[in-house]
């Protein structure tokens, strides 16, 4: 299939990423940190740190513990608040020209509404991602994701306010992941980000103490990749028309292609950025090589093209 005109760009409900590899929330920086190490313009897009209405100081340290093929972190959404972000970081990030997705968080419905209101109509913001793993002050401090109706309430409120596409970020280990995904879409979300970090903890047995100030943090990195992949697959099977960004332990092009084959429309890279600042660029190049080798024109040609056992591959990967 030589001569196929190839493009890496993907369109998720109007957000046009130049490559399907996007820097994930909390690992993407503000355009200053990686000066001289990586060119942000060469990423498909970027999701900001989760922004809250009020500044948040986050958890006391220690905030990271390394585990087998992963890290457990408990940061506590440290950020200077959405207003400071808009005033100080957004202009610099917007100059990169890549689509910016702002992650919004809160401890109450009002918190989400306030944060989303400030971002509303802000030039340079191409989309919103709703962080749902934080404690809900109005529900005994349980995570927002613990009730589908609560998630839908928050996602719905943000979606109604927003002038750009809204993605709900879900954790993998919900007993009813697909109903939760469907609930967010019905409430108004345009797409989904799967998955958020998996709850995890590490104990220092010598000192009889938790290794994190937060006690329980979030596990990320290659250790959670199969969990994320299964979540993407299940949701993509049930809701094939819904754009899904796959995230969880992706560090190579092969990892990314796995997610695209399982049904993701794009992928996000988080923990890998801490190790390799140019990971998104290298992964995008690897995807291009894979597409070329398969004679495919676009990452969209990979979507849900995984051949299932026992199924005739009428929609085989070379059918473009």
């Amino acid at each position: 299939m030589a001569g196929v005109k190839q493009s890496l760009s993907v369109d998720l409900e109007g957000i046009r990423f130049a490559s399907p590899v996007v820097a994930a929330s909390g690992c993407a920086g503000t355009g200053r940190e990686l000066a001289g190490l990586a060119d942000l313009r060469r990423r498909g897009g970027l999701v900001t740190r989760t922004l809250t209405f009020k500044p948040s100081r986050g958890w006391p340290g220690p905030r990271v513990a390394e585990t087998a093929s992963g890290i457990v972190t408990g940061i506590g959404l440290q950020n200077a608040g959405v207003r400071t972000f808009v005033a100080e970081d957004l202009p610099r990030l917007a100059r990169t020209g890549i689509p910016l997705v702002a992650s919004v968080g809160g401890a109450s419905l009002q918190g989400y509404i306030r944060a989303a209101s400030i971002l509303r109509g802000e030039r340079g913001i191409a989309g919103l991602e709703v962080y749902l793993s934080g404690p809900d002050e109005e529900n005994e401090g349980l995570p927002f994701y613990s009730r589908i109706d609560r998630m839908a309430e928050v996602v719905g409120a943000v979606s109604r306010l927003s002038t750009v596409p809204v993605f709900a970020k879900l954790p993998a280990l919900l007993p009813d992941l697909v109903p939760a995904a469907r609930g967010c879409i019905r409430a108004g979300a345009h797409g989904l980000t799967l998955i958020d970090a998996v709850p995890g903890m590490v104990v220092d047995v010598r000192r009889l103490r938790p290794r994190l100030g937060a006690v329980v943090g979030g596990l990320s990195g290659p250790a959670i990749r199969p969990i994320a992949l299964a979540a993407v697959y299940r949701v993509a099977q049930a809701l094939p028309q819904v754009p899904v960004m796959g995230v969880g332990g992706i560090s190579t092009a092969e990892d990314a292609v796995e997610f695209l084959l399982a049904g993701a429309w794009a992928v996000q890279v988080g923990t890998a950025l801490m190790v390799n600042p140019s990971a998104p660029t290298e992964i995008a190049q690897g995807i291009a090589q894979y597409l070329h080798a398969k004679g495919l024109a676009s990452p969209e040609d990979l979507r849900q093209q995984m051949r299932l056992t026992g199924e005739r591959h009428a929609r085989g990967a070379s059918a473009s």
Partner: protein
Amino acid sequence: MRRLRAEILNSRKFGAFQSITLVAPEIADRARPGQFVSVAMPEDRRFILRRHFSIHQASRRGGWAGTLEFVFDPHGPGAEWLAEVKPHHFLDVIGPLGRAFAYPRAPSNCLLVSEGYGASSLFFLAQELRARGKRVDMVLGASEESHLFKPIEAKRLSQTIIIVTADGSVGARGSVMDVVPRAAQGAGTEVIYAAGPRPMLRTVAEFCMEQRIPAQVAVEEEMACGTGLCFTCVVPVIRKDGSGYDNLRACTEGPVFNPARVFWDRWTSEETRAIPTPPEGFPSVVSSWPG
């Protein structure tokens, strides 16, 4: 900062430490004392994060020009692997990272206080201070002799040196704070630099604040990325106007801090609960050098 594949020129053991010298001219040219480098781990291992090491030596002239030395404790995942890597292999290195020590403008008498591995960056600092005509004195502490950092070289770099070990195996028995007041008085110390573990930094910081001696401390925080992306390595630092504190990244806003502004009660507390609002009444900052 730069990222490059740097060849290992030399890897050797001294005492309880391992020292690696790299060929990294782009980093060595820019490196200043207090800054650090990050080294990637191999891809096929269960440990994934880069390791961060303060720069012990960056040579810009002579036969070693363009080389960079860092020293580490060769225990634990990652460090054990690194200690086994042979010369002429290449490492993925990023640096120089972080904010360096500031030098006093006037000719000053500088006391450099360290414990164990913390001495690593202070040797580099001692050289740079001497090159600027400052007097350098040292207090070198360790748990025991094998963890004492290059005492002979320390003698060469400083006017006077006091060695102290917790078990008394060499030098005085005790902790560095047992000898710092005496050292400072004897040397007419005007500026103190310190590097080492948190409790030791706190005692030195309290002495400096009491005596109103301007000081800088380099912290040893666990870092995930080293570049400022992840916010894992934060230190609580009191705002200049005393209105509260902010968690600042040791990798980006540090690792060198003004100890008068570190919120020590918060930082050395083992309390794992978050303190949501700043407690009342921060001490006013006694000396804001260097800011």
